[in-house]
């Protein structure tokens, strides 16, 4: 049984990740202690804030959804050897497109929702593809071009918000999308007589549905499964991975390296765009003037890293991230502990994951100890 369990860790990636998370929490606890707060109480508040009510769980899922998708976006590009810093900008393009298509068009829901999603995916895919094309055609490093495209996207959105017909009068926000473009769960049913009755009878779900919970999470899971399938079971995935591991061998094998770089960045852009669309359609319903980046894309980098660039890993890491980001700040009102602690914890987790060598050393140390222990046991037995 234990052997089986250890076998699970045989590639060490999962073990490293878990140890990193643990170390992040421990060091966070030390910082809380140093600041004069009881870390057990603080983490208690956080855990209570995550699992305490169905509503909280619902919010964790809502918070995680865009992070899972941007994480998948970065992970996918990474498998092709590309570092997509542009998830942020692609997210913005996706959300702006979703608002435009969701607000200006009037269609039945069954057409409207897919159309909004498809348009957002195409626009953001194009946005990501630009960086891919620049890299393939002119050798421009995708890190540089995507960072610049992030700012272009941000100011493009701000410009559109000030455009007549798009800006909601009296606010620095856009108009909201039509109800036919919303993907909130059972929005109308919740308000119908039958719905209210059912919810009164089922208090768990009533609480759970109090939030803007939406289809986005299920979309993200479906996309993760799709990506896993693409990477593992399709020739496209094979080619993308070959290019990522060794472009020279890929070229030798007849794979068009440049084309695959563009494809990879386009898909990555589409995924971040989907994140933006889902956020608009499920939660915000509009976009507002941005003074700075919102951080969905940058958090996605951490999610991808913690999830070791695998689809399943991104889903789990996205949930962890969403939970910490939602539950962490609750320390502040409850006990006055600064909510920044939780950002420190996240930072430390990422820090340790980026430093597998250190953890390997730590593991080696514990293993050595174990070895000596088993040796003495054997001697005892023989004796």
């Amino acid at each position: 049984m234990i052997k089986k369990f250890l076998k699970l860790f045989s590639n060490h990636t999962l073990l490293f990740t878990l140890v990193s998370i643990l170390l992040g929490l421990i060091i966070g606890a030390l910082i809380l202690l140093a600041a004069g707060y009881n870390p057990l109480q603080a983490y208690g508040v956080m855990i209570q804030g995550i699992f305490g009510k169905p509503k909280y769980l619902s919010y964790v899922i809502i918070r995680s959804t865009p992070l899972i998708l941007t994480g998948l976006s970065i992970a996918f590009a990474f498998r092709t050897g590309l570092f997509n810093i542009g998830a942020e900008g692609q997210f913005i393009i996706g959300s702006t497109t979703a608002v435009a298509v969701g607000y200006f068009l009037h269609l039945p829901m069954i057409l409207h929702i897919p159309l909004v999603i498809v348009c957002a995916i195409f626009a953001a895919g194009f946005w990501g593809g630009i960086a891919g094309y620049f890299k393939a055609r002119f050798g421009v490093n995708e890190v540089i071009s995507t960072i610049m495209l992030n700012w272009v996207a941000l100011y493009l959105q701000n410009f559109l918000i000030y455009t007549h017909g798009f800006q909601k009068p009296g606010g620095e926000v856009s108009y909201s999308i039509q109800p036919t473009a919303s993907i909130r769960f059972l929005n109308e049913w919740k308000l119908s007589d039958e719905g209210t009755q059912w919810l009164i009878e089922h208090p768990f779900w009533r609480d759970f549905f109090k939030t803007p919970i939406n289809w986005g999470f299920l979309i993200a899971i479906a996309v993760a499964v799709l990506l896993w399938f693409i990477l593992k079971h399709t020739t496209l995935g094979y080619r993308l991975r070959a290019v990522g591991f060794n472009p020279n061998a890929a070229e030798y094998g007849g794979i068009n390296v440049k084309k695959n770089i563009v494809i990879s960045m386009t898909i990555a852009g589409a995924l971040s765009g989907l994140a933006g669309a889902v956020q608009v359609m499920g939660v915000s319903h509009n976009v507002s003037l941005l003074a700075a980046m919102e951080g969905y894309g940058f958090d996605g980098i951490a999610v991808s890293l913690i999830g070791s660039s695998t689809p399943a890993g991104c889903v789990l890491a996205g949930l962890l991230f969403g939970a910490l980001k939602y539950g962490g700040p609750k320390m502040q009102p409850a006990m006055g502990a600064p909510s920044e602690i939780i950002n420190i914890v996240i930072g430390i987790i990422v820090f340790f994951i980026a430093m597998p060598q250190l953890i390997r050393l730590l593991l080696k140390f514990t293993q050595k100890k174990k070895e000596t222990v088993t040796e003495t046991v054997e001697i005892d037995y023989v004796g």
Partner: protein
Amino acid sequence: MPSKQIPVVEMKNITKKFGDFTANNKINLTVYKGEVHALLGENGAGKSTLMNILYGLYPPTSGEIYINNKLVEIKNPNIAIQHRIGMVHQHFMLVKPFTVTENIILGMEKTNRFGILDLKKAAAEVKELSQKYALLVNPDSRIEDITVGMQQRVEILKALYRGADILILDEPTAVLTPQEIYELGKIVHNLTNEGKSIILISHKLKELKIMADRCTIIRRSKYIDTVDVSKTSEEELAAKMVGRKVSFVVDKEPKTPGEIVLSVKDLMVKDNRGISVVNGLNLEVRRGEILGLAGIDGNGQSQFLEAITGLRKVESGKILMNGADITNHTPKEIFESKISHIPQDRQNRGLVMDFTVAENMILETHSNKPFSKNGVMDHHQIKSFTTKLIEKFDIRPTDETKIAGTLSGGNQQKVIIAREVTHDPDLLIAAQPTRGLDVGAIEYVHESLVKQRDENKAVLLISLELDEVMNVSDRIAVMFEGKIVGLIDAKKADMETLGLMMAGGGSA
């Protein structure tokens, strides 16, 4: 050979385990002062592991090391350097944009009393050192501008600058041209005359015969024997190394070549710097023959090869395959015109090292049936295909899910050969197919090439090893400065004529 046998290095009963795998099993090695001691063994026999232990890169699991009769514990390379041990790795550890002097003093820079780097003094020291051992280098050249042979001298100087008396050279000739190997031999001689001891890791018997005094043989992690090189024949050494008799001569029946398969006309190709390195090359390869392309490295062979396989742009001229023009076609189109290619850099071109053996087997054919249908891969078919090839080509370990990078060099090459031969090409291009391989594997590669020829395929062999070209080929073309300067029947070829032609003097 030194007259007095004073041991400087003694490694006793060295055992090194990596998990369940024993890389060194009770190995003994004694090196005398002033001798060249070769460490002979196949790839993966444990030579490098033993030397890495001596250089402090790995701790041994058990065993003792004596330096100058004193028991020592070498925990890291700094301690090794303190014991005057220096190592020149197979892959050089040099900073390319730095000058020779800067590389040599790196990590022990001399400063004046203001703490400012005194490069002039350092350059003078380097010059003095290089003159003392006849290791001629220009201290002010940048590493990226000098040849591989020069870079190796810099590595040796680096070790000497740190006071090394015991020099470990890991496969020093693997990257060198015949001329550079000859120069290295002289350098080694100068060093031993000055009382330095040299440990030479190698599996090339010929060079070892010329350079080494004594030789310790390791086979499958175990100590086999230590012999006097001058009293042991190459065949004996090979047999000790591989554990069976090895044939050095390639057996092949005479065969009349058939129609022309590949025809290259007035080919011009540029290198990365934009300099024309293939200058009007003409060549024909026929069915049922092995055409060997001989030449000193840097005469345009690599670029020629890349041009015919679609990896480099052809400036002008024509390449015809079975009469059809394939000039500047994509690698995929060229593959489809029935050309297979064993690339010279197997780790960088031939394999995706992070892929499994199975994934590597379908590098060119992954989008073809039966390996995939409508873009979805059929892992079952891929697996059964790979399992068959693993068995047929005796690839070890027999596990198609193994990551290619974990295989030994010989087995990696077998994966490529298995894949390329199975494509059933009309033309097989083999570039440096035996580089870095041991005797057993070389024999295997050569047999594979001859088998292709006997199946009436055309084979183009490009090699820097003149022995290989002469042994395996039916005809030999000599390439010099981007042109074919001579074409001779392999049976009538002799080393001297070929060598002269390779250096640009005379033609057939």
